[in-house]
Every structure is written in C-alpha cells, then in structure tokens.
C-alpha cells in the first residue's frame, strides 16, 4: 500500500541480499508450484507413467456441468459476501469517522479488532450455535411462540443459497475492511472535512465526493483480499455447505486427495483453472469496486 516514501538512494541497485529470502521463498514455492501445476495438468507426470501431453484434462473439466456449477457457486459466494462486507465495513467506518463521541470510536475499533482476530473456525462454530435448527435463534423463536418446534425453523445453514457460509464470510470480512477503511478515512476526513463543511456539504456528500474517492485504493485492496480469500476457502463451505451444490474448493480437495492416479492431472487442471479464474475475477471485482467508489459508474 505504502509506496517508498523515503528519499531514493543514489545507488542504482538494492543490495540483493535484502531481497534474497523473499525472492527465494516466492519463486521456489509459489513459482515452482505454479510450474508444477502447469506441467502436471498437461498430463506429463513421468513418475506415475503418464507422459502424454495434451489439453484434454482442461477440456474434460470445462465440459463437466458439475464443475461449472461449483465454479459458479464459489464465485457467487465470494462476490455476495465480499460486497456485503464492503458495504457494512464502509457503513461502520462512515458512522465512526463522523461520530462526535470518542468513546464510541474507541469501542467500535475494539469490536472490529476482536472480529479480525477471531479464527474462521470459531466464527463457523458461532454461526452454527446461533442459526442451526436447534440454535439460539430457533430456541428464542420457540419461546416467543413464533415456531412450534425446531422442524419449523428455516434451514438457514445448509441451504442451497449458502446462508451460513455467507454469514461467516461477512462476519470475518466486515471488520477487516472496516478497520482499513476507518484508518484511511479518518486521515482524509481530518484534512478535508472542515473545508467541505464550511462550503456547506453534508456528511453524505463529503463521503461520496471526497472520502470514498480518496480512500478507494485501501478499500479496494482490502476488499479484493476478502473476495479472493472467500473464493479459495476450504473449511467454511465444507462445514456449512449444502450437499447438493458443492463449492469448487471442496470438489477440488476431494479430487486432489483421491488415490486414483488418472485423476491427478484433472485435479491439477482444476487448480490452475481456479487460480486463473480467481486472479481474473479479483481484478474485475477490484476494477468495478474502484469505479463505484470513485463515482465514475455513470
């Protein structure tokens, strides 16, 4: 986020040794992994006696309706929950930045920080406790006479729309984006709001015309991270998902650990497809959000 603000050195090259660890780690594990994915997805795994190089594994998964359904489902989950998290995160940040009370600002920040340090697994557990058929909400509804038993409570967790999954992602994404947004928005607000207020702009207009466009980089960065995380998350859709529509991560995992040798290239092709679709959709998501925040949508 922060670009090099220090004065540039006269020396044209950085001491390479400072960059050795990061370059080594990234190129070996990420770059090497990517290379292996490309090679093995083409069907070339001599150690397993597979030598035929072709694109057939890609064609096979792309022709499979269940793969496309899973991909669509995963993209849907990531998009809906990242958008909701961004909206809520910005709403909280907006309320905080324009709040007069320091105590409220401090308290909100503390709550957001707790939200950030909660592990995903713990949030999955909380969502189960609250919203399952025998969860707290169902119990309260029963006591209030709204439902006659746990069978009448709607199936919020394992429904095909992924209510529980989205709720978990939103619960984790909102504080992350909210904290980023609060920090950049507070800095901008200090500088410009007084001027804007004297010119008679309302808080909402200050947000729309000044704060959001100027803080868009940080918001897009944090929101895109959440989008990508949701897209690749394994445990959340696995624990809270429906059996009929399987997320791509669950499908990919079961294929990857399958003991059958001939499914390996398919699993590699699926990984690489998810990686590429992921990167492309993160870019599209980021660009759209950036346009929206800068108010250039029309």
């Amino acid at each position, binding site marked *: *986020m922060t*670009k*090099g603000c*220090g004065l*540039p*050195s006269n020396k044209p090259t*950085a*001491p390479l040794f*400072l*960059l050795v*660890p*990061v370059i080594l*780690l*990234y190129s*070996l*594990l*990420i770059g*090497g*992994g990517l290379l*292996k*994915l490309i090679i093995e997805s083409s069907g070339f795994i001599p150690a397993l006696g597979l030598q035929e190089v072709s694109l057939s594994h890609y064609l096979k998964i792309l022709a499979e309706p269940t793969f496309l359904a899973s991909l669509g489902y995963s993209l849907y989950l990531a998009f809906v929950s990242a958008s909701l998290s961004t909206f809520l995160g910005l709403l*909280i940040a907006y*309320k905080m930045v324009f709040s007069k009370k320091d105590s*409220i600002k401090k*308290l*909100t920040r503390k*709550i957001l*920080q707790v939200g950030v*340090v909660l*592990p995903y*697994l*713990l949030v999955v*557990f*909380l969502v*189960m*406790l*609250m919203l*399952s058929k*025998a969860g*707290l909400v169902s*119990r309260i509804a*029963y*006591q209030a006479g709204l439902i006659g038993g746990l069978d009448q409570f709607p199936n919020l967790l394992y429904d095909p729309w992924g209510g529980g999954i989205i709720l978990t992602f939103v619960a984790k994404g909102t504080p992350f984006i909210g*904290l980023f947004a609060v*920090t950049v928005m507070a800095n901008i607000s200090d500088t410009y709001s007084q001027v804007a207020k004297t010119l008679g702009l309302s808080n909402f207009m200050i947000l729309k015309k000044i704060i959001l466009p100027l803080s868009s980089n940080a918001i897009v*960065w944090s929101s895109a*991270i959440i989008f*990508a*995380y949701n*897209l*690749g*998350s*394994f*445990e959340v859709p696995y624990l809270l998902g429906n059996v009929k529509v399987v997320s791509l991560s669950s499908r990919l995992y079961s294929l990857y650990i399958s003991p059958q040798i001939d499914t390996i290239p398919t*699993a590699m092709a699926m*990984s690489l497809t*998810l*990686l590429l679709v*992921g*990167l492309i959709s993160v870019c599209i998501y980021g660009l759209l959000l950036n346009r929206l925040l800068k108010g250039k949508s029309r």
Partner: protein
Amino acid sequence: MKKILPGALIGLLIGLVLIPLLLIMLLSFFSYYKYPQVLPTAFSLANWQQLLTQNRLFWTGLINSLVIATATAIGATIVGLMTGRALTRYRFRGQQLLLLLLSLPLFIPSIALFIGVHLMMIQLALINTYLGVILAQMIISIPYATTISMAFFAGIPRDIEDLARTLGCSNKKLFFKVMAPLLLPGILLSLSICFVLSFSEYFSVFLVGGGRIITVSMVMFPFLSNSDYGNGAAISLVFLGVNLAVFIGADVLIRKKVKGRPYLYE
C-alpha cells in the same frame, strides 16, 4: 436519508459479537442444553476436564500451534523487515513489479495456491515437517509483514541515518542502536499479526502437515463437523484466549513501553 442512531449500530455490533461469545462461555461450563431452553443449565467441568486431561491430541495441538505460530511470526517479520528496507530505501529495476508480486499470495484462491505449494513441498521433502508448515504459513504472512515494515521504514527520516553514518556508525550499530528502537512498534505489530494469522490457519497446515502435524484448528475441526458443542465451546475459548492475549499483549507493549502511537491493527 434519516440519521441512523450511531448507538443503535454499536448496540447491534456488540450484540452480534458478544452474545455468541457469551453463549460459548456458558456452553463450556454447563452440560445440559436440550432444545427449547435458551441457556444451558447444570454446571459442570466435564467439558474442560475432557479437553484438558483426556484428549491426547489437545496438548500436542496447542504446543504445535504455539511453536509454529511463533516461528512463522519471527520468520515473516525478519523477511518483511529486509524486504521493506530494500523497497523503501533503494530504487532498482523491477521494483514496481516486486511490489505487485508481493501481495500476489493474498489474491490467489488459497486452495489453488497451497496445492501448488504442496507439490513443491513434496519435491523438496518438506511435506509433513514443521519447516514445511512454517514456510507455507510465512507465504501468507510476508505480505502483511512487508506492508507494515515499509510503513515504518518510510516514517524514519533519512537524515537520522545519514547523521549516524557521518558520526562513524557501522551498519550493525546503525540497525540495532538507531533503527531498531524506532521500528520496535512496527516489529511488535508485525509479530502479533503474523502470529494470529498462523495460529488461526487450518487448511494449509492440514495439507502441508499431511495430518501428521496436529494444531489447535485440527483438534477443533471434528468437534464442528460432529456438532460436539461442549468440547467445541471449550476449545474455542482456548483458541480465542491465545489470540486475544497476543493481540492485547502487543497493544499494551506498543502503548506503554514504546510510547508510540497505538498502531495496532490500524
């Protein structure tokens, strides 16, 4: 747009965070929770006793998690400091590209990223080892560690460094006597964030550790898939307790000892 009371929003937030946490606490100490009752009854230490004394995996998992998260935090922070220093102080070819590539692990769907990493780990014989798990975790932590260290390096005026050098300060002294104290809040922040990230992680440890390296997440997972609320509640509190202790501990250290601005998680 009508003014929404900020109080109502705060109340909602508190409710959403505190009520479920309170329920977890009660569930870990009370054993009877039949359907229509809203709160559990029958006080009992059975859940805690089972987790702390009968579950053989719990202590292994906790110690493994602590060791792995500490090592990841230290490793990622050191790499982050080195990378941050290079990116803020020097100009070199490919700098913008490196800056872009640094955050790449955060923008790749993690399951695809870690399947690739897993393949390399098999090649390097790092699968099922602590080192492999720690390196895999560092990949996710380094982008955050570097961003933090860049922000802190950028905040140290070049003049301070030049002055120290003019006075005959060696490289080693420059770092430990001049830079380190100024960077300390950033180092603590980076350590705590990377620790929490690693301690909370499930999938990458599960994949690279091959089920041999058990962490708290892995002990907790079956409680969730089997809806074992009592044990799940107890281990949740341990999980949350460690994360909060690290988070609050770092925050206090930054505020009190360093007298810096409260940078934590801002």
